[in-house]
């Protein structure tokens, strides 16, 4: 974590974007050099990098992660707010893709070689090579522009007071981005599950189970599901990182005000504290995913329990 802090800070502070210029934007011509210096001084940008780092490091330890330049509020607050929006989005996508991916994988493996297997394989391979943002654009065109079922973007309707935003509004805004993410996520999980289950079904112990008179769904349930649960869990939780990356693109396409969009903004406008905060946070997020997977392993797999 500490190493990550150093590295991220080093990279960002060497970025060619001048934060002041990015902040001021198009008004650059009207801002005098003195004013620019003042802005820089206000943010502490005139000090040498190590001092900036110490300053930032202090605020990390305090827990507010410094002040965001573009939002003018503590980074921790920004992340909290943005993450709540993202969490709903990613959560839905995560659950949907995990659930359907697993079912599709199992179905394909059970009917290996049949048309349904081929269909699922074809679908998954196509989608696995589909860029998220492109799929997002397609969905936008189909559902929002042509069919008009869902709004085009944003997290809530434009021009409506915050208090008047209904639950339905939020739902209808979240469906398309969540769908985009889960459609892409399904492919990966379905393919992995399918392959793993095929391996299991060809294994000696399934052969033996069949020799013992087990068949059909009982056989699958007793020996199949448990043995593919581990890899499935691994993928599911390791996909936290992919999900995070995917959400950046999806949120950008749908102008959904989540953490992903904040990342892009922070990067483009040189908002150093916010960007660093998000880097730290996402690292923590992915780490949590892997940790949860490890913990579940222990519960599911007796072999790992034994070693511990």
């Amino acid at each position: 974590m500490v190493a990550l802090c150093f590295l991220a800070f080093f990279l960002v502070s060497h970025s060619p974007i001048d934060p002041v210029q990015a902040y001021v934007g198009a008004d650059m011509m009207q801002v005098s050099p003195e004013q620019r210096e003042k802005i820089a001084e206000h943010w502490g940008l005139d000090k040498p990098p190590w001092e900036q780092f110490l300053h930032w490091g202090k605020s990390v330890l305090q827990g507010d992660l410094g002040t965001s330049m573009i939002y003018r509020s503590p980074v921790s607050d920004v992340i909290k707010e943005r993450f709540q929006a993202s969490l709903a989005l990613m959560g839905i996508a995560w659950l949907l893709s995990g659930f359907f991916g697993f079912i599709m994988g199992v179905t394909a493996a059970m009917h290996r070689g049949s048309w349904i297997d081929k269909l699922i394989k074809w679908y998954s391979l196509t989608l696995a090579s589909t860029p998220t943002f492109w799929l997002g654009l397609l969905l936008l065109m189909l559902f929002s522009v042509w069919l008009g079922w869902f709004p085009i973007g944003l997290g809530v309707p434009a021009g409506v007071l915050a208090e008047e935003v209904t639950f339905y509004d939020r739902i209808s805004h979240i469906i398309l981005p969540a769908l985009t993410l889960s459609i892409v996520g399904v492919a990966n999980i379905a393919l992995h599950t399918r392959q793993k289950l095929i391996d299991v079904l060809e294994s000696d112990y399934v052969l033996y189970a069949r020799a013992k008179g087990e068949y059909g769904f009982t056989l699958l349930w007793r020996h199949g599901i448990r043995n593919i649960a581990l890899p499935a869990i691994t993928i599911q939780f390791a996909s936290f990182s992919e999900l995070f990356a995917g959400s950046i693109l999806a949120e950008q396409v749908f102008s959904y005000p989540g953490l992903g969009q904040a990342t892009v903004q922070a990067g483009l406008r040189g908002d150093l504290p916010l960007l660093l905060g998000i880097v730290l946070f996402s690292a923590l997020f992915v780490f949590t995913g892997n940790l949860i997977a490890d913990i579940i392993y222990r519960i599911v797999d007796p072999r790992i329990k034994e070693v511990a």
Partner: protein
Amino acid sequence: MLEVNNLSLSFTQYQRGLKQKNIQVISDLSLSIQEGEILAVVGSSGSGKSLLAHAILGILPKNASLSGRLYYGGQELTAKRQKELRGKEIAFIPQSVNFLDPLMQIGQQVRTSSQVGSEKGIAKGKGGEKEKDRDRDREKGRVKDRAKDKGREKQRKIFDRYELDYDVENYYPFQISGGMARRVLVASAVVGGPKLIIADEPTPGLHHEVVKEALGHLRELADEGTAIMLITHDIATALEVADRIAVFYAGTIVEIAWASEFTDHGDKLRHPYTKALWMALPQNGFLPILGRQPSPSEPPPGCLFQPRCSLSSKSSSTNNSSCSQEAPVMRELRSGKVRCHFAT
């Protein structure tokens, strides 16, 4: 008990693109096993003996095609009967602990066979009556519990018999030793009360004591009336315990002999390959023969053993060249069976 008549087995495989290839694994194989008898099927490794076992159990992969007939207990053994009988009347003892589900406790795995049976029985006995749903559910639960208890009871009895601690019930396959695994595998075969056991290489890489113990279990079961087919590549092991030996060569059985006939220089044996096999054992002179087994997919013309046969080369110098033209059929000879033109 079990009769296998003219069984042939082949696999279709795709080769480069859509070109299919038929791979012959077993051709025209016949054998029979009586109650209370151990028949050992002896042949070299990788020659398709295991597939014979799978064919009898009906657990071949989908791309296999089978011809010939199987009879069990006087009736034809169809795919449907195989499905009903396996795990119960027909049990399988696999090669190694790898055949146990790595994530399932031993006790549960041993119980499986008996439970599959009892659950089915309940479903059958329950049809037709219209009780109140709740009552029925409770009844169903109770019967299921009882079946479970029964399964456990049965399993414990078997555990007692094979000197397995009840603790082993809660072990996972990776926690038990090789010898223990053997006993567990035998136990899970026996728990269903089988009349026919097919043991596929049950003694690979085991300590001699353990092998002896495992074979002892088989002998014991046979003496109780169970028919046992023991598949192995180790003729010495087979001779220790089997009543009859079926010799597997290039996808078929060339001789069925009594275990007692494997003596001295193999003079009582019928087929030249069996004799060669016997004489190749270290204690019998360690005499190898030239050549190697032909693939059943590309058999030599005539007799399968002809290219390596000493009998054939002797006789061809006289007037008979039937060995290289005509495949010999299985025939009775001195209370055994042989597939050779010249055996006497």
